[in-house]
């Protein structure tokens, strides 16, 4: 039987605000336990939440970028559950009136045709604290630094039919969140987390199968592997005459398996009710238009501009706009050296190679636009050759050296005065008598060896064409 996989995604993203959603505590990542905590976010009795204006603005930006309707009359709701990561014993979230609804993100479907992945809703809520198991006392330690950090939950429709669609959607969503300044989307720091709802059904069947929800997916690779694993598990189960149980499963990326989490029946009764401590938020047409007008350029708009104004090929624009870090480096470098295609080539070639060789994430880009522009300018001016350029770029990337100073200090500049070549080549000819006589006797391959020796003696600092021309002049 042929099976079809059906998936929906719940993405949580931590917002790049300075402060938490309901109090003036910093959202900065890291730091000593419970140092970004106050009476409000630690749930002390008698305290009241006060909504961070930027959270609403960021939610609207995200909604506009994903073609959503913006809800004019917003309310918050209480989601009740007892767990020590939540000191109030409830999470303030939005159930009845989420701020954005009915949007979409376009992806490429199975047949290569464009396809829209529907966004059911986007709502605002607060993050929970962190639990640390203490093996020594066999108890649990709680740190509330992350508690109250603003989140957007972006809930898709069950429109995905393959892992490739899921990854493309996530990449596009991440780019939108980064480009609009809504989130830095660092998956390691948990600022972008995805839960995958997955079911399978015989191809052609319209009713959905029973779905499971997978949590703890911390990288795109983990998501891809978890999807493959879960689809296969469900198909095997059904083909053996079994049944899929609706449950939450946790992915273990080290072992490459998922396992059912403890029964969720206790937690499912969240007893939602309207949050009495927060007055409603009414969003006017003017507010929406003001935010629309001040929206930063989105990936698709940048792609179009790079093609139309800078003349870059489609392939380059796709790669450059896949990460905010590439866009920042690209635009700042072009401003300094005015050669978009060269800059694109260096970023897509050497810079990406160095990122992957040093296992550095693009967002932690150590290379400055000034350094990249300096290397590109020196290569273009013929001051250094491309090979030297790569070496210098690596030094700038890894050790933060100033490219121009480095070239000067290590005497790497190209020999532009051709008369300076002749004495070096004379020495090479004298030192390689054997090859020279072979060449003169008609063994033309010997020239390759002599050429190699010459370039070595010149430390690669002279244009090879000129060196070869001069050697022929001297030997022929």
């Amino acid at each position: 039987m042929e099976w079809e996989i059906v998936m929906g995604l719940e993405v949580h993203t931590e917002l790049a605000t300075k402060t938490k959603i309901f109090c003036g505590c910093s959202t900065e990542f890291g730091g000593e336990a419970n140092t970004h905590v106050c009476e409000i976010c630690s749930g002390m009795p008698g305290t009241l939440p006060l909504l961070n204006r930027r959270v609403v603005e960021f939610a609207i930006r995200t909604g506009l970028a994903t073609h959503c309707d913006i809800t004019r009359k917003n309310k918050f709701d209480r989601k009740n559950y007892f767990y020590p990561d939540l000191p109030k014993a409830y999470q303030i979230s939005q159930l009845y009136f989420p701020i954005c609804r009915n949007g979409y993100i376009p992806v490429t479907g199975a047949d290569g045709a464009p396809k829209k992945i529907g966004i059911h809703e986007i709502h605002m809520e607060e993050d929970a604290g962190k639990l640390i198991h203490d093996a020594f006392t066999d108890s649990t330690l709680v740190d509330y630094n992350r508690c109250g950090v603003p989140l957007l939950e972006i809930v898709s429709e069950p429109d995905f039919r393959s892992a490739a669609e899921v990854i493309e959607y996530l990449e596009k969503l991440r780019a939108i969140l980064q480009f609009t300044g809504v989130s830095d989307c660092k998956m390691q720091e948990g600022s972008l987390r995805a839960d995958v709802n997955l079911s399978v059904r015989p191809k052609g069947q319209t009713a959905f199968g029973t779905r499971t929800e997978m949590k703890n997916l911390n990288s795109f690779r983990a998501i891809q592997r978890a999807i493959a694993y879960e689809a296969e598990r469900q198909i095997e189960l059904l083909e053996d005459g079994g049944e899929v149980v609706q449950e939450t499963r946790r992915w273990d990326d080290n072992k490459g398996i998922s396992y059912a989490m403890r029964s969720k029946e206790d937690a499912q009764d969240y007893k939602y009710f309207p949050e009495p401590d927060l007055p409603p938020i009414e969003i006017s047409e003017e507010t929406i238009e003001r935010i629309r007008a001040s929206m930063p350029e989105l990936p698709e708009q940048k792609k179009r501009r790079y093609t139309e104004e800078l003349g870059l090929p489609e392939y380059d624009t796709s790669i450059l706009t896949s990460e905010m870090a590439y866009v920042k480096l690209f635009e700042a470098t072009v401003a300094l050296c005015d050669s978009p295609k060269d800059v694109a080539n260096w970023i897509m070639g050497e810079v990406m190679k160095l990122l992957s060789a040093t296992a550095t994430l693009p967002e932690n880009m150590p290379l400055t636009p000034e350094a990249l522009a300096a290397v590109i300018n020196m290569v273009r001016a013929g001051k250094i050759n491309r090979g030297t350029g790569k070496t210098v770029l690596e030094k700038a990337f890894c050790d933060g050296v100033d490219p121009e100073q480095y070239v000067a200090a290590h005497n790497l500049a190209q020999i532009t005065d051709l008369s300076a070549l002749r004495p070096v080549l004379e020495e090479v000819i004298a030192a390689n008598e054997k090859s020279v006589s072979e060449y003169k006797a008609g063994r033309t391959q010997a020239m390759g060896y002599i050429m190699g020796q010459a370039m070595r003696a010149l430390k690669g600092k002279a244009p090879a064409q000129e060196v070869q021309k001069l050697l022929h002049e001297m030997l022929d």
Partner: protein
Amino acid sequence: MQIDKDLVMYLEKLGRIELSEAQRAATEKDLQDILTYIDTLNELDTDGVEPASHSFPIANVMREDEVTNTARPEAILQNAPNSRDGCFVVPKTVE
């Protein structure tokens, strides 16, 4: 809605509390009385009345995104029954 012993025990589970049999019976009666009392509200005709979740006609009470709090871990932990290494200590929680 009918309150029975099973529902009371389910609520105990959700609330992480345990009642004695006597308390259970009393709670069952109390909850039933509360619901009956609330039911009188259903007798009102609310057609065309917009649902209200808030008592005052105010909206858009917000603050600017500026850090106003400083680190005070000792103050935050001072009422905790148990704390260690700057953290609250709670009974072991298995995920």
